[in-house]
């Protein structure tokens, strides 16, 4: 409402112009003073309005955080620090520990980023530097489309295509043919639903985020930077490696963070593929749980107040972890851009 008032006020000032006898020099000092006065008041109202809107967003965030915290408080008070470290999640006996879900969220997101980041940067580099012009738009469009596929569709595809392939081909291949089974990460029976499956589906889901941000950032690298490297005798690849990527580095990290945020909170597809078992296992072949899937699975049929409160507490932990991850990532971007000298020392 205030916005509308301001815009009519602003529109008003040019309209009054023709009423002055003849253009600018006819604006006497008094008249000019009044106009400046009006503009100042308009500015004040306008800035007050946008400040208010801007403050609403963090206020909402804090409100949500407080709500979830209060909801989770009974469980947190009851179990204390062991809520974060205990693996016991037993609604029947009323014992709750969220460690497996926290572990699962972090590990599945880490797998997703480890797979998606190099792929996404590769896709972005291909699209911005190497692809012939006619191929760029269609491929970029298709990659971006990956982000538009509903989560549950990924889940279905994962259940009917990815899991059988993992169980029959990929897992035995990694474990037996490559003898990676000696490592704890690739040992144990291959059922299909597993941390690996969840990480893989997440990597496909976060790839478009990382790659489209990276592509934008790469395209925004000034031509003068490329020319500088070329003129110094760099090959195309050396130009990309030595001038383009370093210039784009902080932006690309920003894209990775966006993907990470997405991976941490993703619920549906992961729930369908991770096996939903509250256990911590070093093997990526073993099933696990994530915080988001835990909440989604149990919230509707929570048995009793303590169970509900424990789920709220899990939500609060997820919220805090997301905040921490984002803070770390922001700090990283800042470090990188400072080292690269984007901000003058």
């Amino acid at each position, binding site marked *: 409402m205030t916005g509308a008032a301001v815009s009519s006020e602003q529109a008003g000032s040019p309209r009054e112009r023709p009423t002055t006898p003849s253009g600018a020099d006819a604006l006497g000092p008094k008249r000019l003073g009044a106009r400046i006065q009006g503009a100042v008041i308009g500015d004040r109202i306008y800035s007050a309005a946008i400040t208010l809107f801007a403050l609403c967003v963090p206020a909402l965030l804090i409100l949500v955080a407080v709500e979830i915290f209060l909801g989770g408080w009974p469980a947190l008070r009851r179990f204390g620090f062991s809520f974060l470290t205990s693996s016991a999640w037993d609604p029947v006996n009323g014992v709750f520990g969220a460690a497996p879900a926290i572990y699962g969220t972090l590990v599945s997101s880490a797998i997703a980023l480890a797979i998606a980041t190099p792929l996404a940067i590769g896709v972005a580099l291909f699209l911005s530097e190497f692809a012939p012009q006619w191929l760029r738009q269609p491929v970029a469009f298709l990659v971006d489309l990956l982000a538009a596929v509903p989560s549950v569709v990924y889940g279905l595809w994962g259940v009917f295509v990815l899991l059988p392939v993992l169980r029959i081909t990929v897992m035995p291949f990694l474990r037996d043919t490559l003898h990676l089974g000696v490592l704890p990460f690739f040992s144990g029976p291959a059922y299909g639903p597993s941390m690996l499956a969840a990480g893989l589906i997440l990597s496909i889901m976060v790839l478009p985020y990382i790659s489209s941000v990276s592509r934008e950032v790469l395209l925004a690298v000034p031509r003068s930077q490329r*020319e*500088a490297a070329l*003129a*110094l*005798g*760099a*090959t195309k690849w050396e130009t990309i490696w030595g001038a383009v990527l*370093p210039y784009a580095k902080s932006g690309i990290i920003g894209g990775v963070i966006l993907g990470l945020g997405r991976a941490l909170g993703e619920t549906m597809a992961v729930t369908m593929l991770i096996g939903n078992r509250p256990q911590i296992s070093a093997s990526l072949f073993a099933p696990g749980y994530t915080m988001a899937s835990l909440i989604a699975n149990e919230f509707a049929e929570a048995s009793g107040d303590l169970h509900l409160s424990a789920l709220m507490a899990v939500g609060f932990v997820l919220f805090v972890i997301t905040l921490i991850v984002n803070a770390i990532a922001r700090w990283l971007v800042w470090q990188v851009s400072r080292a690269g*000298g984007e901000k003058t*020392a």
Partner: protein
Amino acid sequence: MTAATVEVTARGQPSGSGAPVTNRGALAARQFSFWYGEKQALFDIDLDMRSSAITALIGPSGCGKSTFLRSINRMHDLLPGTRHEGQILLDDADVYRPEVDATALRRRVGMVFQRWNCFPKSIYDNVAYGPRINASLPRHELDWIVESSLRRAALWDEVKDRLRQTALGLSGGQQQRLCIARTLANDPEVLLLDEPASALDPIATQKIEELLYELKRELTVVIVTHNLQQAARASDYTAFFYMGRLIEVGPTDRMFTAPQEERTNSYITGRFG
């Protein structure tokens, strides 16, 4: 050196007194034409650019100065749809021969751009960029190259205590000299400059001009400039381009006092441009 060094030889003496004069890096264009797609930007350019001298390219905007300069180190190679005819000779060998490696050529023919384009890296890393991609040198040699290049670019004293700091913290004039130092670190034979001082204040401009005067002892320098005083002050030879053609070339003092072409005369007296 070819016999075809036009009126240029009339002047006879190598400029830059005293210092040892090398003859490497002599440049010449022979019947050189250039097209951006359908549009012809250069027409039959014949021009000699002597070593150990500064050749200034002048002419109104859009006349093809930058196009010509960028043809010399083949910066157009990556631009689709461009083509050329004729030759650019570096030490009597055409740079467009198929066996010439463009990246090796660009190390011999350094280029400095209008807008300084330092990398967002430290001062040291900027200067070391060329040597690093072209050879893996031991640390002390790299240090030496960085120091001597910065000295040659008259920047060493101003930055020697802050080599590890970001190059973007330098002033415009310093950044432009850093770009020159970065180019010199490749030990080129030719230095091409496309309006290197157009965004600088008079003091910084003067510094660059003094620097070029020093550098021309060892290098062939070709500079594009819109600033006629600068061309008159700083160059040995001046070439006047107009609508993609080379209208006239000669020793700078003659070009500015007794141009032989009417169009040159109108341009330098400011009647069009």
